[in-house]
């Protein structure tokens, strides 16, 4: 361990002498405070905090990632190029210990810089409300929606029930239509009418049933149950309802009018005297296809952690059915500080992977090539989710081909976007669960990084260090 640590210390010292390290540190030291002052977002305290934390964390993540790539690829390749490695390999140090030492050095450097700059962002973020003269209600909104860690419970669509209903419908129509079933469609390639396949019809029916699960017709209402809601037992705690609305016929003003009810709605409907918590009614006119949130006091949640959310489609104002998508209830389960630490750890997972990648690649590639490959993989990691979703959205034929070729390769690559981007959690005040963090660390560090390091060690073990590489 002593040998590994000695190499690690040497690597840290080497990295600190690099101009890029100095440039990154100076850049962040200048930019972060400047950003906290000049970024105003939408002018509200919440907007300012969200903008600063979003850009601040992204900037720190980006610059530290670039630094990690540069340092991890440079440290070994430079020693190989300048033949300084001879001084090390001639000592009783194993090749794998050199790799581990380099890796450890880069990771320790990352940890130090991450702690420092995360601390800077955290300090600036919590100072902003104190330094600005803002109204109390703006501070309250910032406390509820930013300086918090909220858990979200989404509506679980009963896919099986929807599929069952679709099958029933299909069976019934088949019996009714007889020879005129399945229906006809225009074939894409030939332009001739042909019968749809049973699978095609069933999948359409299932989709329709799924939409029906989320739709509310004019003049009707629907209630969704949310169980296991455990908001913090602080006074004035709020519970948030998040949703996105769409309608079958686009309203001319792009707005959907409706009445939301939140509380123990089943007890209210039964009217048997079991209602002990308040019901809150919220009238909202919301734009279509845009996520929205509103909040009600947490005393709407019952003792057994149940909450009902209902929506009534106002027939006088909405001429068509309304689909409620992405319905979710959010409630506070943790503190901002704790969540911020987890966000920093999530960022560290990314940096550890990049460190392992850089070190592993330089065991067999030269510095420029290794940097290029690292940057490509890093960029792919930033858009991994987008590419995977795009493949899922491809048509049947070509999608199947990609499913078995490109998609498995993408699974090997890291994921740095969507749920793996810590900035998103901090901005929206959502909790990063320890379990998720462990899962991300397990996948990225435990499997992918370890695999890379092992490969690197194997290559380096067999590599002739005296031979120059081009």
């Amino acid at each position, binding site marked *: 361990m002593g040998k590994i640590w000695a190499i690690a210390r040497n690597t840290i010292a080497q990295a600190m002498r690099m101009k890029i390290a100095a440039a990154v540190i100076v850049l962040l030291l200048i930019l972060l405070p400047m950003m906290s002052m000049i970024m105003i977002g939408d*002018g509200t305290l919440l907007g300012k905090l969200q903008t600063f934390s979003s850009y601040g964390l992204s900037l720190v993540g980006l610059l530290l990632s670039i630094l990690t790539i540069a340092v991890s690829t440079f440290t070994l390749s430079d020693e190989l190029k300048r033949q300084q490695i001879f001084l090390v390999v001639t000592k009783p140090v194993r090749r794998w210990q050199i790799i581990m030492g380099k890796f450890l050095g880069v990771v320790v450097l990352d940890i130090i810089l991450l702690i420092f700059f995360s601390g800077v962002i955290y300090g600036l973020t919590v100072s902003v409300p104190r330094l600005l003269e803002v109204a109390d209600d703006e501070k309250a909104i910032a406390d509820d929606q930013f300086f918090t860690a909220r858990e979200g419970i989404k509506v679980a669509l009963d896919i099986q029930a929807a599929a069952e209903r679709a099958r029933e419908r299909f069976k019934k129509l088949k019996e009714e239509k007889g020879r005129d079933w399945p229906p006809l469609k225009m074939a894409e390639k030939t332009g001739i009418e042909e019968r749809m396949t049973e699978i095609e019809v069933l999948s359409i029916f299932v989709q329709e049933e799924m939409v029906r699960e989320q739709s509310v017709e004019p003049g009707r209402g629907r209630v969704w149950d949310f169980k296991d809601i455990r908001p913090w037992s602080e006074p004035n705690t709020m519970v948030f309802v998040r949703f996105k609305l769409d309608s079958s016929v686009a309203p001319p003003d792009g707005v959907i009018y409706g009445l939301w009810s939140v509380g123990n709605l089943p007890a209210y409907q039964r009217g048997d005297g079991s209602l002990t918590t308040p019901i809150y009614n919220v009238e909202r006119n919301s734009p279509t296809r845009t996520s929205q949130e509103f909040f009600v006091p947490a005393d709407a949640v019952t003792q057994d952690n149940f909450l009902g959310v209902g929506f009534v489609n106002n027939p006088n104002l909405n001429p068509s059915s309304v689909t409620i998508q992405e319905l979710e209830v959010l409630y506070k389960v943790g503190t901002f500080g704790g969540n911020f630490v987890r966000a920093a750890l999530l960022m560290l997972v990314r940096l550890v992977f990049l460190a392992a990648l850089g070190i592993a690649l330089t065991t067999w590639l030269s510095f420029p090539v290794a940097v290029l490959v690292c940057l490509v993989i890093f960029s792919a990691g930033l858009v991994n989710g987008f590419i995977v979703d795009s493949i899922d959205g491809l048509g049947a034929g070509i999608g199947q081909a990609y499913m078995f070729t490109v998609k498995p390769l993408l699974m090997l690559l890291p994921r740095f976007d969507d749920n793996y981007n810590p900035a998103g959690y901090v901005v929206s005040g959502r909790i990063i669960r320890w379990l998720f963090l462990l899962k991300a660390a397990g996948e990225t560090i435990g499997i992918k990084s370890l695999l890379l390091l092992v490969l690197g060690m194997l290559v380096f073990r067999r590599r002739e260090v005296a031979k120059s590489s081009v």
Partner: protein
Amino acid sequence: MRWKDYGIILSAIMIAVAMLTLASWQQGGIRTDRDKMGLSLKTDLGDAPPSLAFATVAMGAFRGLIVDILWIRADDLKQKGQFFDAKQLADWITLLQPRFPQVWDFQSWNMAYNISVAIPNTQPAERWRWVRNGYELLRDKAIPLNPHSIILYRQLSWIFIHKIGDISDDCHMYYKTEIASAMQLLLGDQTNANFENLAAAPLALEVLLSDAEVAKFIEALKLADPAFLSSDKWVENYLSLRQTPDRFTKEASQVLELYRDNPALGKIDTFARAYQMRHVWKMDIAFMQKMNAMYGPVRFEDPNHRDPLNWQHPAVHAMYWSAKGLEVAGKPETYRVDEKNTDRIIFHSLQMLYRSGKTLLYTSKDGRKDLFLRPDLRMFTSCDQTWKKMIEKYEQLEHGNPKAVRGGHKNFLENAVMTFYQSGHLKEALEIYKELITLYSKDEQGFEIADYKLPMMDFLKKQMKDEFSSLGIRDAVEMVNGMLKESYFRYAIYDDNESAAREKMAQEVYMFYQKEHNDETYRVGLPTIDLLRYTAFMDFLNDPLYPEQMRMGMLGRMQAERPDLFEKIKKQEQQFFEELRKEQEKQNTEQSGESPS
């Protein structure tokens, strides 16, 4: 190196130079072709601020990529309902694509429409901020950078007339109140003389300093409060001092008091207000005067005299920007879609002003501001003249059949006759009727319209009969109640002529309805006019839409100035409660009579 190598190097250099020269000769032709095909943007950065010049030049080929990333982020955040970054992204996108008007158009629309409605209507101030962000982006940045792009002027006008001026947004009254408050502060009494003074006000504070008294005053203010040392914010601070002196030192208020009767104060007031109009609201005061002269309301007593437009109303701002756009960027000879749409905004603005152009900004003692809008019949002439011009343009430039437009004009004149009559302007009503029967004496098939052969009063009676004959008792009662309530409102704001006109109209409608429905059932069902007066009175007193101070003021005024009417209403109240008590007793007796015991 051998001579052969030198020869090769020299040849290579000469070939390279020749190729470069050949390439540069092609530039002129390529640029011309690009302009012809509309592929090039005007990228003259001579007058652009340094940040803009840097952003557009330094980015080089990456500018397009960065713009794409920003657009994707903006759309992604919008999908997630996160708008904290929307303004910043709009600023950056427009910084990188400043000469692309559609970018400014989209971003301003996104802020004013999409983002503002995402804020709950219980937060009107927050919503207003986004609407302002939208129109300020166009007014303050887009138009100065793209002064010849008519779509920007159109979008700016549209935000004023539709988002702010119309009623589709739940918070529209808040927006209107904000505009009215701001304009009241800057324009005060909207008279032609006031506008003359504003137009004549110097463009810079330094020019004003040539007046010795003004210079002394400014010096005294600087000594009184350090806030006035900065020349950048001098005007802003001065206007703030005039409005809320408590924000500044006592010495500053004392200086104001000292110069209260000094003409220097008036000069500075005028300068400050003109400065704000020019630099903050970006409005050309001379052009505003031109608009006043072209479209201002006409006095009934002097038809040759036009008063200034009511700049507290958002429709006037819509007209201003539309007209400005047409003047600066329009091509009237081609009459493109953009010119047509901008033209129409002027037309719709005038209609809006006719229907609701009179504003009353009522400030209660607790600081609450309420805005009331009422028809401004003086705008009839401008509306009518513009309508006729529209018909003419339609015929000459579009070579179309203006049937629909003429039909609209005819209906407008018909309604105007009734409106003017109901408001007590008989002479004007008659003139409009004469115009109506002159222009539209025949229908589309060429037959004479029988109704237009009637004298005006008979025509009006027939109109009323057609309108009221389909009304049930309830609707009739509501109509009369509404007119009486309006009459009390007008009385509360000391608009006595209109108040009397409304009351008279209510009585006429009541009597007309009573006469037309001579049926026993209707006569029994229709309440007495005194009872209707009472219910309307109580409706007004209990209506929270009107500030409490206004309602109590009306009550007090009525007690003092119209004690006979007040007594009548009190008597009616007693009668009403007496009848109610009798009715209740009757019901109780019937119920006790039906009980098993």
